[in-house]
């Protein structure tokens, strides 16, 4: 097999468009995961034991099932109940929900790490519950978990090719389509690997920088 540079340059724009989709799906999915994870965490602190148990069961279930059946469920099963969404939207939502169960765990651990003395100082100052969370607990917890959250961003990026099972033309599917048209798989698939490595390395460097910045404080 020969590496064909002309062919490589021809398919590069398609792959970059795929990469854009991958990055978009990751970023928007991540935003959902960040917010929804916090919602899970706060719900689990409700005074009702039954409710906490239910929330916990749901998040455990989502976390311990693979992403692909979840993608199928959101894209193919939900429309049967009248909820039809495009493949990219379905992919973003699924990624977000799936990873929210991980970020919830990260937040929970971050909150549990806050020294008891901080809560006690809040009581001694008589701070209302909303202020305890907004001014004291969350700012400290989020600081502590930023590096871990960063790692989940990278993990999510690497999981995003799975969106091809619901026909999202992200990078891998774009490469596959190009390859099947020309019967040349070597170039597109290699390019996918190279592009993934480039993005992963860049984001690892950023995450490590974040880690260093927040570890020293």
């Amino acid at each position, binding site marked *: 097999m020969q590496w064909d540079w002309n062919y490589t340059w021809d398919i590069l724009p398609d792959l970059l468009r795929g990469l854009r989709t991958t990055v978009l799906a990751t970023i928007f999915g991540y935003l959902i995961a960040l917010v929804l994870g916090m919602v899970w965490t706060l719900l689990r602190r409700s005074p009702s034991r039954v409710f906490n148990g239910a929330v916990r069961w749901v998040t455990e279930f989502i976390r311990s099932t693979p992403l692909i059946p979840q993608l199928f469920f959101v894209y193919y099963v939900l429309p049967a109940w009248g909820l039809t969404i495009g493949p990219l939207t379905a992919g973003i939502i699924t990624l977000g929900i799936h990873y929210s169960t991980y970020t919830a765990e990260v937040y929970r651990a971050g909150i549990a790490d806050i020294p008891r003395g901080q809560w006690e100082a809040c*009581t*001694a*100052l008589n701070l*209302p519950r909303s202020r305890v969370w907004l001014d004291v607990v969350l700012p*400290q917890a989020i*600081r502590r978990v930023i590096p871990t959250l960063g790692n989940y961003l990278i993990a999510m990026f690497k999981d995003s090719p799975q969106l091809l099972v619901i026909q999202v033309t992200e990078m891998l599917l774009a490469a596959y389509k190009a390859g099947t048209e020309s019967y040349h798989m070597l170039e597109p698939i290699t390019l996918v690997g190279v592009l993934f490595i480039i993005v992963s390395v860049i984001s690892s460097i950023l995450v490590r920088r974040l880690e260093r910045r927040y570890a020293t404080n």
Partner: protein
Amino acid sequence: MPPTDTAPEAPTPEESEDAAAPAEGVSTEKKGARKEDGDGAAAALPHGDAPGIRFEKVVKRFGSNVVLRELDFAVEPGERVTLIGPSGSGKTTILRLLMTLEKLDDGVIWIGDDTLWHMDKGGRRVPANQKHLHEMRKQVGMVFQQFNLFPNMNVLRNLTEGPVRVLGASKDEAVERARGLLDMVGLADKENAHPSQLSGGQQQRVAIARALAMQPKVLLLDEVTSALDPELVVGVQDLLRDIARESDLTMLCVTHEMNFARDISNRVLMFDQGQIVEEGPPDRIFGEPAEQRTREFLQAVLAS
């Protein structure tokens, strides 16, 4: 609603309103020593109608470990009481019950003429709800052994957070008061520093200022110098001595520093196993303790 069952030295609420007549054992030097001009450190301190405190048959358990067994004791309005006693005798637990950091198992705690852990509902005494606890806590401030400053806020914000969010002070008012307090604790130049940039002694002084910024009437101090390097202890103790001298606060203090206890308090309570072994003015407790257990305890503390 006046309490029914009365420990001998406890004030009834009617009496406790009459704070001008100090009860036996309360030093009178406090009033005379207060600065008349109202500027300087004293201006930043809370003044006026500090409530008394009374424990009635207070029970506190941790699992099967009964820490306080029907404890009765009282602190007069404006009185400064030091709790001493061996480790595990329940001193911290008493302060934490007053700060509502631990739940009361049985008995009643009075702050002034209100019950801390109970409220009145149609003539019946029922467990307090959050609103009642919130109101009651406004009177009480606490300084912790480990400072517990908020590391995500600078010094000024540590001092203004409570006044703005809880007391409804305007930002400007709160900042002005905070600066006054920082001046008093000798840290006027540190308002923009974060707690991690301060020494232990400085952090504790900020923590004292933060507690005072809430304008409490009762101040609880739990071994506030025992986490400090030895050379930083004196500064914090001197500050607390000034505060004791120049404010009307009712103070409850746990300490292993007997000289400090002697300077700061009107009365010393010796605890063992959740019970008062003996009590009296510091000079008598430290000079001629009546009880064997007190003598042993004091010897052990002095030897260490």
